[in-house]
């Protein structure tokens, strides 16, 4: 498993695990307001890296989109995925 980020306010934590399909799980303090937007950032970033099968968990403490994207990119590169 790969883990990046923190649980500090305005940050998020990303966890990646092996899986035979793509599964995205989001926990967020602003899920009601921004859940869809967070999903879009995660999905788009996985697409950019052509990752089709992974279990991705994002625990969000109110991070802005570019923070979420940076945490996920770092996780993917630690995971060994080449930038597409």
């Amino acid at each position, binding site marked *: 498993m790969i883990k990046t980020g923190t649980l500090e*306010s*305005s940050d998020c934590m990303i966890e990646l695990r092996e899986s035979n399909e793509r599964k995205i799980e989001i926990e967020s*303090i*602003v899920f*009601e*307001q*921004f*859940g*869809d*937007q967070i999903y879009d950032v995660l999905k788009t970033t996985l697409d950019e890296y052509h990752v089709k099968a992974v279990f991705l968990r994002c625990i969000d*403490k*109110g*991070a*802005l*989109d570019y923070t979420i994207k940076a945490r996920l990119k770092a996780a993917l590169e630690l995971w060994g995925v080449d930038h597409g």
Partner: protein
Amino acid sequence: MKLLNSLDELFKEIDIHQNKAISFHHHLRNGDLVINQVLEKYHSHHVQEIALFPSAIFPSYQMIKRLLEQDQIAHITTNYISGGVADYLSNQGKENILTMQTHGGRARAIIEGKSKIDIAFIAAPSVNYKGDAIGYKGPSKCGSLGYAIADSEYAKIVVLLTDHLVDEEFDRVEIHGSNVDYVVSLDKIGDPSGIVSGTTNITTNPIGVKIAKQTARFLEDIDVIKDGFSFQSGAGGISLKVTAELENYMKIKQITASFFSGGITGYHVGLLERGLVDKLYDVQCFDLTAIDSLSRNKNHIPISASKYANPADIDQVIKDLDVVILGATEIDLDFNVNVTTDSHGIIMGGSGGHSDTASEAKVSVIVSPLFKGRLPIIKKHVTTITTLGKHIDVLVTERGIAINPLRKDLLEKCKQSLLKIKTIEELYQEAINYTGIPKDVTRSDVQIGVIEDRTYDKIDRLYRK
């Protein structure tokens, strides 16, 4: 005045079932040990249809939740709620159970007979043989008893609860024995660690510091900081930093202030003792330094909530207030401010003196980061209106200052200012460029209560989640 040794003795004297409109003050904050003990009696006597008038509700006041669960409470009238009771009311509160007032509005409603109280239960840190009481001495000292004064003068029955009965005359009596019917001795009325609020520290967060510096410069630019000015800042970290910035300016320009009002901290006491302000009008002490200052500083004056903020009181202190610095959970494009519910629609506070001071002060300033976590502070419409936009003059954020278009005089004064003066729409746009547009949160149509302004106007409604 009759001296009793327990609540059981009290309820042999008076019929608990005939006296169920009851009030409490919140000066002991989360360290209050009185409200739960008294409500335990109402619980065990199965009293129905209780009308509760606490000046505020803190997380430790758990008996209120028990009584709500047993449906023993008909109505709650208060100025602020946090913790379990707030969550319970937002998620399960029955229809029209709640009226949220302001500090000045509560005192006014009691004095004018709109809030009729059978028994005022007043936790009193020091009581003497005449039934006089003060709050600034004793093992459970809390400072000013400002929120309990109207209750002590207008409730049908006044009961003091104390753990410190003394044989001495008090300086500056706050509650007069002539108004008191019973004094009940209890082992302990408060837990000192919960009485003083944790942190009243000046912020060091760079965003907070930037906002405070911009605020101080703005106040200098509009020329309100001059000899004899009056000011209220509360105990928030950014507000205190504004006060600290003004202190430097006052020293350089050799300016002294006439008074500071509201909640008082050790920092305000320091300014009094350094001769930078003539008087502190204190309705509530936030820390031990402020509490102890009441014993030694003649010009640190405890005042009642009515004298503080009741619009019908001819001595109202904030009528002469030049500047107030306030916070906000949300502010909208019409400058309406919410400090009652969070952005999910759950109750987490209340006006306190927010609407009172904003209504009266010549300049009311909201200080806040442009977004908290990911939530922009500026919304098209606030979730709940605590203070009407017509009373809010300025919003200061780290990325610019917005002046209410109603204040053409302030806009005029800032024409030459080097500060970043923007419209609130521009600041809104800037915020959502970073955060995205938040989806509106959902709520039910079940109305649990109203926001009642100090004018008695109902300015908004509260709904179950």
